[in-house]
């Protein structure tokens, strides 16, 4: 099918059709052309620390098994038996030496090889070559600072090329609070379904700071880590320059570029011990990272559907399509694995009251996304496109940090995102998907 993609998605003018948020055709094309190629977040190594550990995850609409084999190697398999398709593993997490299919009992080792085939001798001898019927495995897998990513496209560029300059921002999520690289662990996962198109959620995390008014209720009552005085978060960045950054691969985020001289702002004010811990981490991070420590995170979205919160709260959220107008969200909450227990406790409590379906902040997001989806489904509604014209052209390239950088609230991040999205749906090659034609920062870096 050929969809009139350029007519419906016009980032140049900042006009994008509602069709991409409601139509079954777009949904189908996304599954075929986007989710089969892009790098997707699958899980975290802290969920599978030992040989034989597995965690059942998703890529797009399909179930996958993240597994550490008996030799310690990490794999991602499609969770569907090669015989007649039964879901091989219906446990969320565990440890095993074999995945035994409930249907006819074919069994697979933790590296995906078909091992047991009942009555092999009498039924299959000489015909079935076990080697050819392993679990379907992702051709591309990359572990970055504990996070596991995979792509179904053997031709996909390596993960770090795919990330491009967005890696500096992702690092702010994954690195220890005191600046040591990596070191996070997952302390829990929310899973829920919401009747909205997945892109409403993804684009919200591209740095839609403009939607702040919809969170007025939490700011009024103060649910932040400092209690009454903290609005919904601590204001750690009072002296920083807010930046909204886009990258040619489709990633976008809202971060903060702190001034050359900046000091610690009290956070977690109702817990002196936690405040002290973060003061220590702050100073250490500055000492370790130098000028790089000036970059601090708010939210971002790594193309296509992995969003993050960088500090308060801290985690990765994957917006899995679940039909054209339904999304299944999986949020992985992160802390530094070696943080003191008292710190972890304060963080997890804050995460729970902020995030997800029970979170006082995000409930209002869910309400917006549901009714934006529903009221875009009508025949008349679909004739009228959405507006993405905020801050047209108001950005500088590689100034003061890599990427296309806006110093004001902008729709540049979603304009850029949907420009890349359109390229996937047109089946472009990887040079185009990576934006090599529009990648000044890469050229500058090489």
């Amino acid at each position, binding site marked *: 099918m050929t969809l009139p993609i350029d007519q419906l998605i016009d980032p140049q003018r900042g006009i994008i059709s509602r069709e991409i948020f409601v139509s079954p055709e777009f949904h189908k094309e996304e599954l075929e052309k986007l989710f089969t190629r892009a790098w997707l977040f699958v899980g975290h190594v802290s969920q599978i620390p030992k040989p034989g550990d597995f965690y059942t995850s998703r890529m797009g609409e399909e179930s996958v098994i993240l597994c550490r084999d008996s030799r310690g190697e990490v794999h991602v398999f499609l969770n569907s038996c090669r015989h007649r398709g039964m879901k091989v593993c*219906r*446990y*969320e*997490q*565990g440890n095993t030496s074999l995945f035994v299919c409930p249907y006819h009992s074919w069994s697979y080792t933790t590296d995906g090889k078909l091992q047991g085939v009942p009555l092999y001798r009498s039924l299959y001898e000489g015909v079935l070559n076990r080697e050819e019927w392993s679990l379907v495995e992702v051709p591309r897998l990359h572990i970055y600072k504990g996070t596991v990513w995979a792509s179904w496209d053997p031709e996909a560029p390596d993960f770090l090329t795919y990330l491009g300059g967005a890696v500096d921002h992702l690092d702010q999520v994954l690195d220890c609070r005191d600046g040591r690289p990596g070191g996070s662990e997952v*302390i*829990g*996962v*929310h*899973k*829920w*379904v*919401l*009747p*909205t198109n997945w892109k409403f959620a993804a684009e919200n995390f591209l740095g839609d700071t403009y939607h702040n008014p*919809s969170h*007025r*209720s*939490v700011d*009024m*009552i*103060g*649910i932040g880590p400092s*209690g009454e005085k903290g609005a919904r978060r601590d204001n750690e960045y009072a002296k920083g320059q807010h930046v909204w950054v886009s990258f040619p691969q489709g990633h976008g985020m809202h971060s903060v570029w702190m001034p050359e001289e900046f000091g610690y702002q009290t956070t977690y004010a109702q817990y002196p011990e936690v405040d002290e811990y973060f003061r220590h981490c702050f100073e250490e991070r500055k000492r370790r990272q130098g000028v790089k420590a000036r970059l601090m995170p708010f939210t971002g979205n790594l193309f296509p559907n992995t969003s993050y919160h960088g500090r308060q709260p801290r985690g990765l959220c994957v917006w899995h399509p679940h039909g054209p107008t339904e999304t*299944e969200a999986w949020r992985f*909450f992160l802390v530094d694995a070696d943080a003191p227990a008292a710190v972890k*406790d304060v963080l*997890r*409590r804050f*995460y*729970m*009251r902020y995030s997800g*379906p*029970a979170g*006082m902040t995000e*409930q*209002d997001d*869910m*309400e*917006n996304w*549901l*009714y934006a989806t529903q009221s875009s489904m009508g025949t008349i509604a679909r004739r009228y496109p959405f507006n993405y014209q905020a801050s047209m052209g108001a950005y500088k390239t590689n100034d003061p940090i890599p990427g296309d950088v806006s110093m004001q609230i902008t729709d540049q991040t979603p304009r850029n995102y949907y420009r890349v999205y359109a390229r996937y749906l047109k089946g472009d090659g990887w040079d185009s998907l990576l934006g090599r034609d529009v990648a000044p920062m890469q050229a500058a870096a090489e």
Partner: protein
Amino acid sequence: MSTIERLLLKQEIEDFLYLEADLLDGRKFRDWLDLLAEDLVYFMPIRRNVKFGQHDEKENTRQGEGISWFDEDKWTLTKRVEQVLTGVHYAEEPLSRVTHMVSNIRLLDVTPTEVTVGCRFLVYQNRVEYENYTFIGRRTDVLRRNGESWLIAKRELILEQNVLLAKNLSIFF
């Protein structure tokens, strides 16, 4: 405790739980907060699909550890009430229509100061026009004697779902 005393106590507890449901469904949220003890623990775990034999150990997330749907105290619930009362908490503005059903009530443990009560809950939420959610599960409450009435000191809500089949948990349970 004699049988008659136990029956009377059970009747008293049932009345209390029905009164509580009335306050919530009647949107008297501040009055509802008055029924909560200052040291309240309000907990709803996330349920996981685990292998036979691992249910006790692994099926539910635990109070005091990691991430659950709710693992909070009276301060947080008070914030939730204040948020609804701002009139701009859009996930509850306009307010949902909610009915709390409580059944299968049993007294699990009785001490001079506290009673542990087991029950089932069925909470029906209808929102705006077409949004409908039914939350069903098991609940264990610890009620503390408070003069003529009771305070809720602990509430554990075992919701019978794995992936949450609702966009929000914006109501009180």
